[in-house]
């Protein structure tokens, strides 16, 4: 590593050179033996504007080997790392296929395949020969042809100059649009290009400092700033549009179950603990809630385990507590489950407290896990952890209320839970309203905004308003039937489940591709100005 530690590998891509031929795409497939449907390097055919003002361009995409990668810290096993020379590496043998990295990437760079598809339905001699079993069920992505680079350096070649020591996409490019080299070397070709040409980095505002820099002007084609009108909301609703992110399918209902069950379970444990410590329920109730919570939490975790690509490797997910909220979630789950279990052997209230702390932290971890899905604009909003925690607590109240329903107790929680529920409903409602209202500003795509928009009335009415009224009745009207609280709780629970399921599995389109600047070329108003 010493040899490469002073280097900073990266690429420049000249948008005015690229003709979208896909030679790089297919050269990458050859060099890296990727299976059908997997394209580590891909060139998008992009159209902006409206006839007769139209611009078409080709955008090379793939792993940007970010200087500040969002995929690395989220990896719970350390399978994804950043080398000293900036390359983001994948250790297939360590990866569990949890897809945290895939949803954290705002560049749609990562892929997971669970079987070994073949092009013709049967494996050809070539496919058999180049098969990579180690890639099944784990995350994969462009490596900047790390082996070519390393072996090239070993052989005394110069990556970026010698084609065989340069990533296959750059070497194969028939328009010399893709150039590879060392950004730390001011004399490298890529450094010279960015020093002399106008360029942009994609999604600069996200702070990843991607190491693919897009050159966008030539003497006959000046640069122009992207105009929001380049892409109408109508265009952005079209998932066939090359720039529009597809709905992520990395995390499906099984993953959502973890957030749903995790929220309900951990929230209940926290609420029950608070009820117990404030004297509103007895320890017996708390223990029951803890047991129920444990089961719910375990179901959630079981569901998420079902979806990971390499199930037997799941224990490796504890390896990265330094940065990964998923690793941390496992640790705090351990605290919770351990405390609940230990209480049976040693009914010490300390274990009740540690269980509650574990549950609380678990809830918080979940918020942070979803929030670290930086590649999904609906997830990465800063209030996401708060939303999950607030919802979790509301769910906790609701489940506690349901569990308390019919509980043979002299203490009634109906005087405590309804006001708490009201406060949390109002707070959750406020958070949702803020979320829905700011969705556009926060970079959420029109597709997801529409989904959020259509969910909102249902959530407000059934998840917020009706429970609010019912809890209000329970609070203000003396001797209300506790079944009203129960109904209110169930409705609020359903509301919570609904929004989480929606955000995780439906309103979850991947970050759109975008160009910070555009080449000024095309028809009508986009036509390159006459240069005198």
């Amino acid at each position, binding site marked *: 590593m010493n040899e490469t530690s002073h280097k900073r590998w990266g690429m420049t891509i000249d948008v005015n050179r690229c003709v979208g031929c896909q030679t790089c795409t*297919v050269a990458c497939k050859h060099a890296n033996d990727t299976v059908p449907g997997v394209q580590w390097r891909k060139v998008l055919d992009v159209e902006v504007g409206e006839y007769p003002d139209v611009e078409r361009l080709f955008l090379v995409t793939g792993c940007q080997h970010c200087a500040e990668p969002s995929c690395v810290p989220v990896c719970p096993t350390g399978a994804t790392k950043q080398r000293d020379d900036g390359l983001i590496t994948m250790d297939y043998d360590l990866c569990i296929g949890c897809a945290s990295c895939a949803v954290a990437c705002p560049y749609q760079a990562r892929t997971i395949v669970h079987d070994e598809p073949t092009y013709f339905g049967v494996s050809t001699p070539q496919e058999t020969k180049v098969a990579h079993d180690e890639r099944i069920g784990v995350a994969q992505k462009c490596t900047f042809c790390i082996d070519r680079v390393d072996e090239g350096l070993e052989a005394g070649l110069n990556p970026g100059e010698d084609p065989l020591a340069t990533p296959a996409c750059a070497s194969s490019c028939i328009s010399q649009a893709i150039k590879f080299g060392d950004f730390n070397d001011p004399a490298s070709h890529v450094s010279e290009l960015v020093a002399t040409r106008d360029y942009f980095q994609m999604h600069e505002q996200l702070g990843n400092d991607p190491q693919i820099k897009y050159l966008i002007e030539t003497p006959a084609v000046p640069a122009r700033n992207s105009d929001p009108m380049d892409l109408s909301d109508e265009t952005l609703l079209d998932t066939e549009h090359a720039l529009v992110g597809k709905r992520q399918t990395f995390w499906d209902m099984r993953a959502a179950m973890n957030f749903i069950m995790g929220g309900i379970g951990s929230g209940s444990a926290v609420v029950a603990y608070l009820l117990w410590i404030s004297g509103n329920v007895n320890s017996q109730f708390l223990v029951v809630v803890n047991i129920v919570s444990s089961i719910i939490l375990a179901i959630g975790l079981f569901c998420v385990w079902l979806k990971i690509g390499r199930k037997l490797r799941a224990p490796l997910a504890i390896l990265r507590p330094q940065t990964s909220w998923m690793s941390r979630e496992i640790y705090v789950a351990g605290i919770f489950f351990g405390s609940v279990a230990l209480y049976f052997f040693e009914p010490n209230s300390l274990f009740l407290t540690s269980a509650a702390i574990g549950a609380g932290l678990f809830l918080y971890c979940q918020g942070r896990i979803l929030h670290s899905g930086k590649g999904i604009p609906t997830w990465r909003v800063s209030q996401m952890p708060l939303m999950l925690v607030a919802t979790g607590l509301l769910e906790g109240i609701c489940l506690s209320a349901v569990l308390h329903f019919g509980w043979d107790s002299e203490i009634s929680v109906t005087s405590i839970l309804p006001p708490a529920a009201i406060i949390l409903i109002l707070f959750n409602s406020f958070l949702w309203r803020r979320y829905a209202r700011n969705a556009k500003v926060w970079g959420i795509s029109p597709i997801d905004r529409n989904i959020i928009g259509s969910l909102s009335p249902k959530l407000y009415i059934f998840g917020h308003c009706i429970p609010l009224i019912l809890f209000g009745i329970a609070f203000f009207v003396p001797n209300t039937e506790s079944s009203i609280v129960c109904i209110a709780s169930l409705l609020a629970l359903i509301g919570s489940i609904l929004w989480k399921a929606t955000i995780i599995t439906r309103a979850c389109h991947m970050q759109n591709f975008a160009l910070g600047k555009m080449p000024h070329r095309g028809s009508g108003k986009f036509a390159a100005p006459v240069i005198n």
Partner: protein
Amino acid sequence: MALTDKNSNKKSVATFCYQCVAGPDLMKVEVEDGIATRLESNYDIQDEHPGGGRVCVKAFGLIQKTYNPHRIKSPMKRTNPKKGRNEDPRFVPITWEEALNTVANKMKGILQDNPLDKSGYPRIAASFGGGGTPTQYMGTFPALLAAIGKVDMGFGAGQGVKCYHSEHLYGELWHRAFIVAVDSPHVNYILSCGHNGDAAAGVAGIWRHADARVRGMKRVQVEPHQSVTGGVAAEWIPIKPKTDAAFLYGVIYRIVIEQNWRDICDVERLEQDTNSPYLIGPNGFWMRDPKTEKPLIFDLNKKKSRPFDKEVKNPGMEGEFIVSGIEIGADEDRWVHKNIKVKTSFQKFIDHMREYTPEWAEKHSDVPAKTIRKVADEFIENACIGQTIEVEGEEMPYRPVAILLGKTVNNGWGGYNCCWARTMLMTLVGALEVPGGNVGSNVKLNRPADSRQKSAVKGPDGFMEYPFNETTKTDWEKDPSIRNAFKTLVPLAANSAWSPALGPAHLPWLFQKKAPSNWPTPTKPDIWFCYRTNPAISSWNAPEVADRVAEFPFICAFAYTMDETNHFADILLPEATDLESTQLIQIGSAKFVEQLWGHEGWAIRQPACDKTVDYMDMTDIATELAARSGLLEKYNAAINRGAGGQKLITEEFDYGLTENKQHSNENIWDATAKAASHKLSNGEEIHDLNWFKENGYMLKPYSTKNWYLYPHMKKNKIRFELPYQERILRHGTQLARRLHETGIEWWDKQLEEYEALPSYDSFPDIWLDHVREEGGNPDDYPFWAVTSRSMQYSWGLNAGIPMINEVAQNVTGHKGVLINRGEAKKLGISEGDPIRIDSISGFTSGFAVLREGVRPDTVVMIGQFDHWKTPFAKDLNLPSLNSLTSLSLSLTDSTGSGSDLARVKITKTSGPKRTDQRIESGANL
């Protein structure tokens, strides 16, 4: 790739990709344990190859091609005598022995009997894929054809609409440009009418144009939809289909009429190097000196007319001149003129252009007059008239402007006009055949084929000689020698080995259905060889052609997989494909498209991997057929004469094959390797086949001065034959007489095109009239359907290769029919909807792909699909314009070409929307 070759079971095999006409490009195949695993460009040649030694996307499909499980695995014969699209051919495997004997015996029988049938047509016919690329794969099969002698190679597979047809013919006439390329290393401004070079000009073209763009070259793209090339251009100007000639005429008007042409054009070039000052008699032919019969020009200084080859520093260009002389018309008609008022070619040109104002052009083309003027002004501004540049020590004019024409622009009706207008514009600024301007890349009709310069010989009137097919009473070929009658109908098609393919290659199919009057009875060939072509998919009106193919009695198809043409075959011969066969080919110098090199030499294709099916190399097949049909000696003699690409016996060397002996593939190419290297190095470096297998290629420098024809012309005092087309007029008039003498009137519309100065017809109306002619109402067909090049698929016969399909999906248009979004909305069509497209002669179906970059009146179908037999491809549900275009005389121009164009209607059909595989995000957790 080489860096990983640490294990002895891995090797890297040098070979080439020549799947498309823009090649060849060199590559290396990584082979492990006899299995081809990966493929990469051959970077060894990156400094010499004009495209940096790279191969394009198509080459990467070759490994899948090799291991395609759908391959024909052994020779097969048909057992169902009934042929038809819905007939199961019931192919059964047979031995090579049986297959070769069956074909050879049939050949033998024909050759021993009479190689010509009752109509005088060859009984053996052969069709090959486009652009001459099959020749680069068929080994010594051309030697077998030469040994047979009479072979009809005029059954087209799409020629005429799929090629730059008018450009091929007029390009060779005017500046030895079978393809009119651009000197991209020097050009600064390109006006491109539908030339989709960034999808079609190959690695060299794309590499150099990208360099040019970064250098500052500006390209303005004029076309109905924004192609790949239009996207990359600085400006896209949407134009109504088939009106490019109007647009270009408007540009000419802006330059020569709206402004003082003497201030902005290359006056000296026009006066001294073109026929501009030639005087034209009242009958439209040159005024000639009565004694020498040389065309006259008017010397303003001496105030008298003089033969064109006298030094006239100040020739008359404009106005009228009173002169005496003779005029020699068609069939040697002669007129003697005394002191009559005549005009020059240039004045006639000015007069001719006067009606074509930018406003007029706007009405026809939808391009605003203001834009036309802007383009004309930019063109002039960038022409750098008067400037020079040094090329390898020689000073040459520097004119960095060029005009490129795409298919459908430079073929079919209007093709002549567009080619003429383009060449005229280039001539006005002196940018033809000079650095920075338009250059020809090679010759195919003129000879010798290896040198444009040598082929440009001065003729009696001061222009390049041209091998017109005779139209005189005595020498006109009244009875066509092959079924497409190129020598009879198309004087410009000349008579080279390429000419049959450049005649009206669709006529055999058309006439087979309905014979025209006063014409030999159309017959079917007794044997039809079919190699690397699929006319039942690639022809205009492909379904109609498929029906005709089904009528052929015996088809021998060299077959890789089943396809729509070999479905009708009687014998299938699985030949060694690209990574399995041996051949040496010439590379470098100046070839096709933009393969303009600074080197020339030879490259090898060699077997890279172990055999997986029971194939034979084309050379071995040819040898076996020759031996079994009694043609061995003639066959070997043809190889010795150079039918394998290189003469084996010359005055300098003799590597000839013994003619009465059957030679192995290795022996034949070993001799070729030695002869080729001997010739290339003047005997200094003689390499055998093994050397080529090891090294891949051999090169020597080639002067880039050869890219430009003008210096040669100037040196030899040859003038460009522009603006006035006296020879075209002459041949047209003579041809009309010959045909009418024979009672043929069905070619009259085509004869009208033989104008000395092509006048604009409302070309789009021809397609509307065709709808009426077929009994339809043009209002029912409100859209223009056009096609566009798919770089991923074109020429490659690779529609059955899934990896190519996968990556092609990233390029818009590979999922269906491109329709303007607004227009689709009006029709209630949304993205991915199933639609049916009907023309007056056929229909196709696919899915809607909504796009802004297409005119509202135009729909686009990329590539050529609508497969119904080819494995994998038949399940793609992709539409094809070839199912919509009409095989029709009224859509055939005088050169025998048509245009990829149809009037269509679109209907949303019931059925599910397009479902795309979720390959984009890959993950499917």
